[in-house]
């Protein structure tokens, strides 16, 4: 049903002024706090309470999803949606007209209207009339029009773009292909007329409008010189991918990106990084979902290489830009491979690293492609963190930087007052339907409310507190960890709000309980500048190829063009907003040096980057960001354009030295990388070479030494190479504590074992810097001697020649699988992964020793994964009663879903009862490993979630391996295994795990028993090693 109910306008939207329409106090809440105290003429956005066209479209899409299950064809849905949207557009227009009449009646001068992304009217009005405007029926909010030109002017000059533009380079002659959701070529920043009418003529204003598929004489333009729509209007929600010649944007992502790269308004007040560059709008991303079509992407790369489709690439774009990808990037990705080929053809390719946050190995494809430039996000220059200042009592007075703001309730001018702890603060009906309001423990009237997180949406808590008189709100976390932000979940009464850590919340409560008065300030004046630091959401490397990715950072959140608004602008963040800064910078360099190759342009950008980038000045003052977050540093294109030479590693196609992950079992591990230096000048140059560590404690440890010559000489227009070596002393490395379970998403934990820094070449005032990085794992080198058999078993001797204690776990070996032939394994671009099982083992941890019965399954594979999350899932199907039908399945997956947490966990699902699977333990799996161990509650002794196996009862099981990244396909299996807990054929006397100290051996007593084949498929023992060089697992054949 997409009928009247879905499109009905809110009641009361008559447009007449009526002072009785709203209860007292409502108008103040509708007026943005930034307008409080305003005098004289002000420019404001009057937001109307009906959804924007885009929001309405989303609603209809959702509704259509329900209808699809009712057998309505996609064609019918599409038609119905278009009709509904068209009707709704008329209603929005009518409502805006009514509100506009009321605005005019209070002397407001209309500046413009928007309907697509926002439903609002911009007016200039005397501030004394704001309360009257807020009373107009249908008005939801009155917000200031931000002087975006001022904000825009932050980022381009900050990275050196304005200086380069002032020197006469603006990207003229360079073409950038933007593979995204299309481009609104009618926007004033992109050479369009800059009117709503122009957009309506080009698109029609609703997805599926026929105008959005035809050129109508409006495209191409002088700015957006070509393009194509390879995805169409319907995919994936309403129908199949389709193609049409009109790449007009509806969703908005691509328009932001294009503006940051090459925007330029006719009046010259707005300029992107390369305002003289031309654009190709190649539409590959959906207008109705966040997906970008895989077929469309491959066609788009072809189009970028040959826009006129004549088979000759002489009209190829100079730069291909992609603010899209997939976290945990894998080299088998076909788009990554295609873009590598594009780089080989001389195209500069720039891609966002992703917004996967500070999780090891989360950096996405296609940015992991060696030749692709992978871009991280840094903070805009004006960004600040707002701490909580406790003014009194003295015992806890101070400035606390581990806070977070919430977008929907900004700090604004701030607030100072005494704190009142009101409890959980959930209003009636917010916890569950009909739930009572939480009691207000202490009145917050005129105070700053402290509220515990939990139970209901945080925005409803704030609303509840403000309704009870609070002038500010502190949301106290109830579990340890950094302060985090929260999304909007309802409510309309807000006051300056900060989220604080549990520890600080507890400290405040303790003083309140002691009858102290706690006075605090939430104030932007005490803000901590974040300029030159990381955005917390920017994805971390290294890549799955063990390379330094991302490679360069740039500020995100540049204010840029909003689709369908004519001339509207707003901040656009994430690495999607950062990467266009780099594409624009590359365009400036290509104008200056049109014959330079992708690796030369990339090296210019990386060699000149500002290396002084910090993690978070509010949380970690002075703490530099690790190389695997920022790569070479933050973009400085004014420095790049002036370089006389560049330095890079030709093997990895990057101006970075990626030594990767290495198991260091002894003190003489040596890794070598080549640096190539190219001199563009007409005179010979000599560069001194400095080696530095990012962190003083890494240098002081003596575990890693960087070896390089003291200088390098390069002749005029010449090239020369030198080597940089790392000498790793395994014994001095810290003990490896990383894992892919509990710490699988913990980037901070990666800081310890990583070693990184810069190689800096200096000649006069010119500096060329290359980041270096290695992830050494202090390792044992344990091997088992041949099994020595005795009457009732025998023994194993484990010899550890390494520098780390050798940890081992012993399992009954129940199955093996042959190695899959090399010619069946995927290569780069093949779009599938093979998970190749090697050995499977199992053991019983008895209740008598471990308090409850547990089973542990050991799975080793040929080949390693950098992270246990991807691309492998293992399913253990357990036939608890051995009747031939599986009863449970145990499997691993990422906690919370794809790229949600980085943590790998073990789930159990009951195949008999069905229903949801339940997580039972974190997966025992390391980074850079081919081993996983699943711990599983065996029976009720270990809790209600178990696999129903009794000691002494034979169960059957099979292990299946899946590619869980590309195809979902099963890639290998070991089936029909049997094991009897408490009656193993082979085992060890005592604990089935232990350690071998470095440079020594341990003897492991092996037991054996006569168990019929009907009860066991054991053929020996499976040794699983941790942090062990060379061998990760070892099979000991006993039978």
């Amino acid at each position, binding site marked *: 049903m997409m009928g009247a109910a879905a499109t009905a306008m809110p009641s009361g939207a008559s447009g007449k002024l009526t002072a009785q329409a709203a209860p007292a106090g409502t108008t103040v809440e509708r007026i943005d706090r930034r307008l409080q105290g305003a005098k004289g003429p002000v420019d404001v956005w009057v937001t109307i309470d009906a959804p924007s066209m885009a929001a309405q479209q989303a609603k209809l899409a959702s509704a259509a999803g329900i209808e699809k299950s009712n057998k309505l064809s*996609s064609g019918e849905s599409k038609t119905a949606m278009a009709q509904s949207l068209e009707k709704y557009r008329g209603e929005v227009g009518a409502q805006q007209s009514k509100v506009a009449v009321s605005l005019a009646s209070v002397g407001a001068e209309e500046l413009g209207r928007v309907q697509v992304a926002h439903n609002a009217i911009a007016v200039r009005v005397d501030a004394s009339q704001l309360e009257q405007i807020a009373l107009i029926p249908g008005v939801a909010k009155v917000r200031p029009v931000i002087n975006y030109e001022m904000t825009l002017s932050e980022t381009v000059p900050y990275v050196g773009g304005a200086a380069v533009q002032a020197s006469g380079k603006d990207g003229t002659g360079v073409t950038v292909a933007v593979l995204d*959701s299309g481009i609104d070529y009618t926007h004033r920043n992109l050479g369009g007329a800059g009117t709503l009418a122009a957009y309506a003529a080009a698109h029609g204003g609703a997805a599926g409008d026929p105008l959005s598929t035809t050129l109508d004489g409006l495209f191409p333009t002088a700015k957006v010189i070509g393009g194509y729509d390879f995805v169409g209007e319907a995919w994936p929600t309403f129908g*199949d*991918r389709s193609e049409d010649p009109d790449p007009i944007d509806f969703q908005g*992502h691509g328009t932001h990106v294009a503006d940051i790269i090459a925007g330029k308004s006719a009046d010259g007040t707005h300029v992107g990084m390369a305002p003289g560059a031309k654009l190709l709008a190649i539409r590959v991303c959906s207008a109705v979902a*966040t*997906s*970008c*079509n*895989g*077929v469309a*992407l*491959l*066609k788009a*790369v*072809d189009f970028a*290489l*040959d826009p006129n489709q004549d*088979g*000759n*690439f002489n009209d190829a774009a100079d730069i291909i830009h992609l*603010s*899209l*990808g*997939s976290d945990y990037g894998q080299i088998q990705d*076909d*788009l990554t491979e*295609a873009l590598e*080929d*594009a780089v080989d*053809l001389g195209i500069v390719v720039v891609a966002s690293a*992703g917004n996967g946050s500070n999780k090891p190995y989360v950096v*996405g494809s296609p940015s992991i492609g060696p030749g692709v430039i992978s871009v991280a996000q840094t903070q805009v220059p004006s960004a600040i963190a707002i701490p909580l200042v406790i003014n009194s009592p003295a015992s806890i007075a101070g400035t606390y930087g581990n806070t977070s703001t919430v977008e929907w309730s900004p700090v604004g001018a701030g607030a100072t007052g005494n704190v009142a702890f009101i409890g959980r603060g959930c209003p009636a009906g917010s916890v569950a339907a009909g739930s009572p309001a939480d009691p207000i423990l202490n009145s917050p009237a005129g105070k700053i409310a402290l509220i515990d997180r939990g139970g209901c949406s945080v925005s409803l808590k704030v609303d509840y507190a403000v309704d009870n008189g609070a002038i500010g709100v502190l949301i106290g976390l109830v579990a340890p960890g950094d302060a985090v932000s929260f999304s909007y979940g309802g409510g309309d009464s807000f006051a300056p709000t900060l989220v604080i850590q549990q520890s600080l919340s507890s400290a405040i409560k303790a003083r309140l309980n002691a009858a102290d008065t706690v006075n605090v300030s939430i104030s932007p004046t005490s803000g901590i500048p974040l300029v030159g630091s990381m955005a917390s*959401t920017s994805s971390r490397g290294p890549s799955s190829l063990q390379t330094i990715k991302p490679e360069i950072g740039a500020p995100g959140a540049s204010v840029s063009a909003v689709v369908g608004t004519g001339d509207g602008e707003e901040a656009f*963040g*994430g690495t*999607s*907003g950062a990467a266009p800064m780099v594409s624009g910078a590359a365009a400036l360099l290509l104008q200056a040096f049109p014959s330079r190759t992708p690796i030369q342009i990339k090296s210019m950008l990386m060699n000149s980057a500002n290396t002084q980038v910090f993690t978070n000045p509010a949380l970690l003052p002075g703490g530099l960001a690790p190389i695997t977050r920022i790569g070479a540093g933050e973009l400085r294109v004014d420095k790049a354009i002036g370089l006389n030479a560049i330095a890079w590693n030709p093997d990895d196609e990057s101006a970075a030295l990626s030594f990767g992950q290495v198991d260091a079992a002894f003190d003489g591990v040596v890794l070598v990388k080549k640096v190539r230096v190219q001199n563009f000048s007409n005179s010979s140059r000599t560069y001194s070479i400095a080696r530095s560590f990012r962190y003083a404690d890494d240098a002081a440890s003596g575990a890693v030494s960087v070896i390089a010559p003291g200088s390098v000489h390069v002749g005029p227009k010449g090239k020369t190479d030198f080597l940089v070596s790392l000498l790793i002393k395994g014994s001095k490395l810290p003990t490896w504590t990383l894992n892919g379970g509990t710490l699988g998403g913990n980037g901070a934990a990666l800081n310890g074992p990583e070693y990184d820094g810069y190689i800096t070449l200096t000649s006069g005032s010119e500096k060329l810097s290359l980041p270096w990085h290695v992830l050494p794992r202090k390792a044992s080198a344990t091997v088992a001697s041949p099994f020595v058999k005795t009457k009732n078993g025998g023994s194993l001797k484990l010899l550890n020649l390494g520098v780390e204690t050798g940890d081992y776990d012993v399992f009954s070996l129940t199955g093996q699988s042959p190695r899959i032939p090399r010619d069946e394994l995927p290569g780069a671009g*093949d*779009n*599938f992964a093979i998970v190749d099982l090697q050995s499977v083992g199992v053991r019983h941890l008895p209740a008598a020793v471990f308090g409850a019965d547990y089973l542990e399954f050991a799975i080793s594979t040929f080949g390693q994964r950098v992270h246990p999350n991807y691309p492998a*899932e293992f*399913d253990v199907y357990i036939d608890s009663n051995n009747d031939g039908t599986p009863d449970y*399945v145990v*499997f*691993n*997956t*990422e906690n*919370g*879903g*794809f790229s949600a947490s980085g943590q790998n966990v073990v*789930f159990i699902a009951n195949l008999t009862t069905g229903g*949801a*699977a339940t997580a039972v333990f974190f997966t025992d799996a390391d980074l850079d490993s081919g081993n996983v161990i699943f711990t599983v509650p065996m029976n009720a002794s270990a809790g209600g979630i178990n696999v129903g196996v009794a000691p002494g009862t034979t169960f059957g099981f099979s292990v299946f391996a899946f590619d*869980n*990244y*590309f*195809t*979902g*396909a099963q890639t290998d299996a070991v089936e029909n295994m049997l094991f009897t807990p408490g009656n193993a054929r082979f085992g060890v006397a005592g604990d089935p795990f232990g350690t071998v100290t470095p440079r020594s051996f341990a003897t492991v007593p092996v037991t054996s028993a006569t168990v019929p084949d009907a009860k066991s498929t054991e053929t020996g023992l499976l040794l699983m090693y941790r942090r062990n060089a060379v061998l990760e697992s070892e099979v000991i054949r006993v039978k």
Partner: protein
Amino acid sequence: MYAGLIASVVLAAAQVSPGSPQTVEVLVVLSEPALASLPRDATADQRAKLQQRIQRQQDDIMTRLAALGAVESARVQGLRNAIAVKLPPAAIDSAKKIKGVIGVHTISHRNRVDD
């Protein structure tokens, strides 16, 4: 793959097409070299000849794929010589055996990197 039943883990893969649950979309990679294999200074005649060979091979193989129930959805020839088709999963093995087919790959979709 059990996790796929409880969480969205697989990025895209050979997705069943809306409205036609019996088919999957795959990329059929062909043996003739793509246009990008030509040297930069290749003549127009060389380019035209390779384009003709690619076109001919794509036409021939598409005919064979159609006989397996495949429906063409796209062709590329710049960086890859390949045809995207929707076909019954059971036909994939047969498609791999067609002379001139060097690979049948799943289609991976990506996501915008939203803020």
